[in-house]
């Protein structure tokens, strides 16, 4: 059975899954879920993700929801294919995977949802949310900046899943007026330039509507 990814290319969480599939050089079919007509609330979809959210991943062995569980699964199941995305110490990898989900993503998502996603789905941007969240995320990004001054990648010397999981949101930010959040921090900027130059990433980016 071919790999199926249920989602939308304007959804940062779907893009996270697309990114790992392209890094691994895996073929897949993107099955659009029509959120406007309530496709995510239909019984067939809820059977795949009871939270009614995209993305959902399916391969011959099973189905997975939650984008970070999907990227973890793909990185592990297909470890021997393409780049090994798990080559770091358990401590560093687990820490920075969790930092992305707990510290980085909540404010970053709110910024890029307002600036990058809402315009694509016919909703209007709330600039006061953007300003509030931009203030909040500064302190988090300062920690990243100091960390990347001493580490080439987040979990050490190699590009891993910890770096990959950040890519959709930073990419969407890079198309917005708030990219100075990254651009003004030299090590964050250099890290982003390095990881976004990866051929697999370029393949992903070119397929996105941002």
């Amino acid at each position, binding site marked *: 059975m071919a790999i199926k990814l249920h989602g939308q290319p304007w959804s940062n969480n779907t893009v996270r899954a697309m990114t790992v599939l392209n890094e691994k050089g895996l073929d897949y079919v993107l099955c659009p879920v029509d959120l406007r007509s309530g496709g995510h609330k239909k019984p067939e979809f809820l059977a795949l993700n009871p939270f009614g959210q995209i993305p959902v991943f399916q391969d011959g062995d099973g189905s*997975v929801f939650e984008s970070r569980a999907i990227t973890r699964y793909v990185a592990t199941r297909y470890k021997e294919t393409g780049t090994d995305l798990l080559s770091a110490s358990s401590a560093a990898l687990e820490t920075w995977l969790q930092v992305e989900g707990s510290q980085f993503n909540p404010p970053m998502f709110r910024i890029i949802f307002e600036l990058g996603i809402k315009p694509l789905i016919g909703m209007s941007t709330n600039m006061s949310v953007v300003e509030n969240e931009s203030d909040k995320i500064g302190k988090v990004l300062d920690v990243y900046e100091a960390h990347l001054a001493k580490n080439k990648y987040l979990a050490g010397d190699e590009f891993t899943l910890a770096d990959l999981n950040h890519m959709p949101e930073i990419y969407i930010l890079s198309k917005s007026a708030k990219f100075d959040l990254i651009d003004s921090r030299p090590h964050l900027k250099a890290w982003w330039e390095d990881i976004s130059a990866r051929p697999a990433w370029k393949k992903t980016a070119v397929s996105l509507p941002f």
Partner: protein
Amino acid sequence: MASVTVYGTPLSPAVSRVLACLFEKDVDFKLAPVDMAKGQHKSPDFLKLQPFGQVPAFQDELTTVFESRAICKYICNKYPEKGNQTLMGGRDGGLLAQTSVDQWLEAEGQSFNPPSSALVFQLAFAPMFGFKQDPAAIEQNEAKLANVLDVYDRRLGESKFLAGDDFTLADLAHLPNGHILVSKNEDLFMSRKNVGRWWVEISARPAWKKVVEMQNAPLG
């Protein structure tokens, strides 16, 4: 002699998440208090362990780890033979079982944690530290949490625990906020038949009871 140190107070939900995992795994540890009232969590020494200035931090003979769910995974990876051996994927232990744990741990972190933490702050910490409660925030977050718990109730009608037949990290992650919320508003969990059944079962685990004992222990 314990080579494991956890920095923080057992009253912090994130710290207690780690303590629950250590007790489940029968791993000896030392608890090093961090005086947050005196700003110790922002001191240069502490920031070397946890650069975001938050508890918990974890240190063993090899390394430091932070983020409570990362610490739990690290402990499970490091001690596969000790204590509870199904925390990362049930008796099966294969990749799909592990992925189910990851999936429900993400659901906890992304869907359960934000509204439950907001409620824990409003209902428990705000009164404790003399902050004013925000009724609108309470109402909004109760509504969000209710939606999440409805999904849990359906899931727990089909599955004994969130990730499958065994108690795993995915269930454990809910104990800290669940414990506080149930003490403030039992109805949230107990009015839902399957969530109630699950809550009674997971909160009765000896490892969790040891954490609660530490939380209730007199200071000093």
